[in-house]
């Protein structure tokens, strides 16, 4: 089977032909066996017939065995036995079929002769042709018919009475006989053709069934089953039953190491949720096509989940081959995809496991590649990671962290850090509350590690509440310290937002701290917002009615149509850091257009991840309303916030005085 396993019409046809050929071979073997038995029976029957019809020949009182009996007996070794031997020991061959055909017709001729030309025995010829039609090979019928024709022509010329009888003797009488043979053969040929067509149809159906059972319907790639079969079939063919201990060294020497690459599209779910499943499906097909171009012939590319692909690589000479292949996969996905008028940028994370180093069965290799893939995601996505002991340690650590998270809140290990949001002129407008967890053993745990764990364990609701309360408490304290209102932006997870009473719950917390709702901004990602558009709008309207502001977080990483911006009751969009930092053709023009469009629908724009003066200048120049990033300040603990506010207020006062003096 040609790999990569991307099913196409030609592959389907090829497989159908394989099935057809297999069916034909099976059938031919059966027919060969049938003829072996038939010829043996005919031989015995012919001898018996000869003995009954003409047992002895006489000359006066002397007698001997009739030559017909000898002819019947010797027909066995002369041509019947060779045909039987071929049918038994050399089935499915053309030469076997033709020898069987010749033997059948010779038996017919001899039988007719032995029985004195009885008309009934002529039917043996037609019976033989009918049986030979079981081969579904017109060439065999041709051989049989040609031999019959030669017999009739030769005897018709030299001994016409034996064939045609004296009353109708004519040198052209053989033409009539030939016509009858052609007439019967035509029916047989048609029968064969029909039979072949049916067999082909059955083969095609089987091929379709196979394809359905072994290929992903959407992309045409191999599915888990075919992947498993590919994995199992190769070692048997290539390596035989080598001992496991010798295998690894042997494989390396022969350049027959194998690798499993587990590829997961980054944020595909987000695209699927926001752009719809039709676009998502189209995108998956395009991804599959591109991945197929990066996979070497002989390797297997399979789709094993929604946005998960697995490549089974064969014939590696070193571990680096697998990494290079992983990079190739990432590279082919780096160019934008165009789906229904949307330009989509995708990335993926690839985990790699090696055979037999990381496992000798596919499930183990796949599981380890999957784990390595999560490591790649944890490192910031769009990269490859090879499974290693480090990966295993990381996972153990994450499991431990997951267990410790239950106690983290009680033990006071969770803290909020705050990163300033400033206007273009540097004026402080608020802070984004950022969760930090200091593990007693592992130290600071990144939010990208702990938030998924919290969501997975369900702790996110309790932690989210804690964050909301802490952020509100801090915000309240800032109002007391500052000269003007300072807002707080709080990230909300999907699980929190899906609570039916989420708006009321938030309002109750605000009431708890007597905090002005206008000072609170809830940041939600596009994916969260667009899960259920009607319900989302209802929730958001409830929140906004209370005075709470809504911000679309990580804007630029998803694929939501800008029309959603107008549909959803939001106040600001927050350009994602990757969107701000990424350098690509016409980047400035794209940013400028997004900001301008947001302004037109009444949204403020916050630029996130500003790290350099150039980025600050660029975004400021584009009328970006607010900015956030390390260029202004790193996230700070709550103790440092008051000082930052004071410093900011001081700078503002100085700036005001300067402006006043100039004025």
């Amino acid at each position, binding site marked *: 089977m040609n790999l990569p396993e991307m099913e196409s019409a030609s592959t389907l046809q090829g497989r159908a032909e394989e099935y057809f050929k297999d069916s034909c071979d099976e059938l031919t073997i059966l027919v060969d066996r049938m003829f072996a038995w038939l010829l043996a029976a005919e031989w015995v029957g012919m001898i018996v017939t000869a003995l009954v019809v003409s047992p002895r020949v006489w000359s006066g*009182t002397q007698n001997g065995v009739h030559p017909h009996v000898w002819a019947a007996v010797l027909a066995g070794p002369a041509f019947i036995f060779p045909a039987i031997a071929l049918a038994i020991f050399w089935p499915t061959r053309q030469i076997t079929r033709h020898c069987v055909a010749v033997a059948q017709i010779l038996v017919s001729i001899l039988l007719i002769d032995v029985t004195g030309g009885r008309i009934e025995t002529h039917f043996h010829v037609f019976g033989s042709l009918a049986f030979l039609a079981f081969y579904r090979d017109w060439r065999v019928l041709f051989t049989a018919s040609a031999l019959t024709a030669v017999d009739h022509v030769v005897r018709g010329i030299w001994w016409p009475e*034996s064939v045609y009888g004296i009353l109708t003797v004519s040198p052209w009488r053989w033409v009539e006989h030939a016509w009858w043979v052609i007439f019967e053969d035509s029916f047989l040929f048609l029968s064969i053709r029909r039979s072949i067509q049916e067999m082909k149809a059955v083969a095609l159906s089987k091929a379709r069934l196979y394809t359905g059972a072994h290929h992903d319907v959407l992309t045409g790639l191999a599915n888990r089953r075919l992947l498993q079969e590919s994995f199992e079939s190769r070692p048997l063919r290539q390596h035989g039953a080598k001992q496991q201990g010798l295998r690894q060294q042997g494989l390396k020497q022969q350049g027959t190491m194998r690798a499993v690459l587990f590829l997961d599209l980054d944020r595909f779910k987000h695209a699927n949720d926001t752009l719809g499943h039709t676009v998502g499906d189209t995108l998956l097909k395009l991804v599959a096509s591109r991945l197929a171009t990066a996979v070497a012939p002989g390797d297997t590319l399979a789709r094993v989940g929604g946005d998960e692909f697995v490549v089974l690589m064969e014939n590696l000479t070193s571990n680096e081959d697998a990494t290079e292949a992983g990079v190739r996969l990432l590279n082919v996905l780096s160019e934008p995809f165009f789906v229904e008028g949307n330009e989509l940028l995708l990335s993926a994370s690839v985990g790699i496991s090696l055979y037999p180093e990381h496992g000798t069965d596919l499930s183990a290799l796949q599981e380890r590649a999957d784990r390595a893939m999560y490591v790649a995601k944890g490192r910031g996505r769009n990269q490859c990671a090879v499974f290693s002991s480090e990966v295993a340690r990381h996972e153990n650590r994450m499991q431990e962290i997951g267990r410790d998270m239950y106690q983290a809140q009680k033990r006071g290990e969770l803290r909020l850090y705050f990163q300033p949001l400033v206007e273009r002129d540097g004026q402080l407008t608020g802070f984004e509350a950022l969760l930090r967890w200091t593990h007693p053993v592992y130290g600071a745990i990144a939010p990208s590690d702990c938030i998924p764990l919290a969501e997975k364990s369900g702790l996110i609701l309790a932690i989210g509440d804690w964050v909301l309360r802490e952020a509100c408490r801090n915000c309240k304290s800032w109002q007391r310290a500052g000269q003007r209102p300072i807002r707080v932006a709080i990230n909300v997870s999907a699980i929190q937002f899906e609570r039916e009473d989420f708006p009321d719950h938030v309002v109750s917390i605000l009431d708890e701290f007597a905090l002005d709702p206008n000072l609170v901004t809830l940041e939600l990602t596009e994916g969260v917002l667009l899960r259920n558009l009607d319900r989302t709008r209802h929730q958001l309207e409830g929140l906004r009615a209370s005075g709470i502001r809504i911000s679309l977080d990580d804007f630029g990483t998803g694929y939501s149509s800008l029309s959603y911006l107008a549909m959803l009751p939001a106040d600001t969009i927050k350009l994602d850091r990757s969107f701000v930092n990424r350098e690509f053709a016409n980047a400035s023009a794209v940013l400028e257009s997004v900001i301008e469009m947001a302004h037109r629908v009444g949204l403020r724009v916050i630029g996130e991840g500003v790290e350099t003066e150039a980025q600050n200048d660029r975004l400021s120049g584009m009328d970006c309303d607010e900015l956030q990033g390390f260029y202004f300040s790193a996230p700070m603990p709550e103790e440092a916030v008051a000082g930052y506010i004071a410093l900011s207020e001081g700078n503002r006062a100085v700036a005001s005085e300067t402006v006043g003096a100039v004025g």
Partner: protein
Amino acid sequence: MSIISDSAAVGWASRKSRMWILGILSFSSICTLAGAGLLFRYDETAGAVSAVPARWPASSAIERPARTGTLLVFVHPYCSCTVATLHEIASLSAGARAQSGQLSTTVLFYRPRNSGWQPGSLWQKAESEIPGARRIWDDDGREARRFGARTSGFAVLYDAKGDLLFHGGVTGSRGHEGDNLGLDQLRASIDTGRPAPHTSLVFGCALAGADVPPIGENR
């Protein structure tokens, strides 16, 4: 339309095996052709015929009807090839002229001296299939020698005046039934009363063996 070529799944046999197979098939073909040639030669080889008297032999012990033609058929009682002759004669006896009593048929069964041969299947067949035919033993083949018969299946037809109309065989080859020149000529002679223009070959077992010369030669 052909569906099958040499199976790739099974693969070609080794060159040595192929040579063996081709050798066996060649030998088989030669044997088959040679055997067929010998067989057909045997089937097509006519039996010996001696001179046949143009007039009914006066020495014959067989009674010849004065008003009808007489058909004599000489048969070896154990010659299986002669079954075909009897069938042909039977079909002839079913003809209009024979039915009307204008033909007297006698089947003479050769019997060597002191052989003790008894009526067999051919005797029964002549009785059952040729109505009205007389069956007599031709002891030591005396009558056969008088009429020049040396091969089983030999037939002679004399008209009411005792003139020879037909002599020869009535089968196309040894033991083969079906239309043939001899039968055609015999039928014509019976129907028209005219002599047959050609002598037809006789296919069957030798009546008295090669060592017994015909009467004419004894003279």
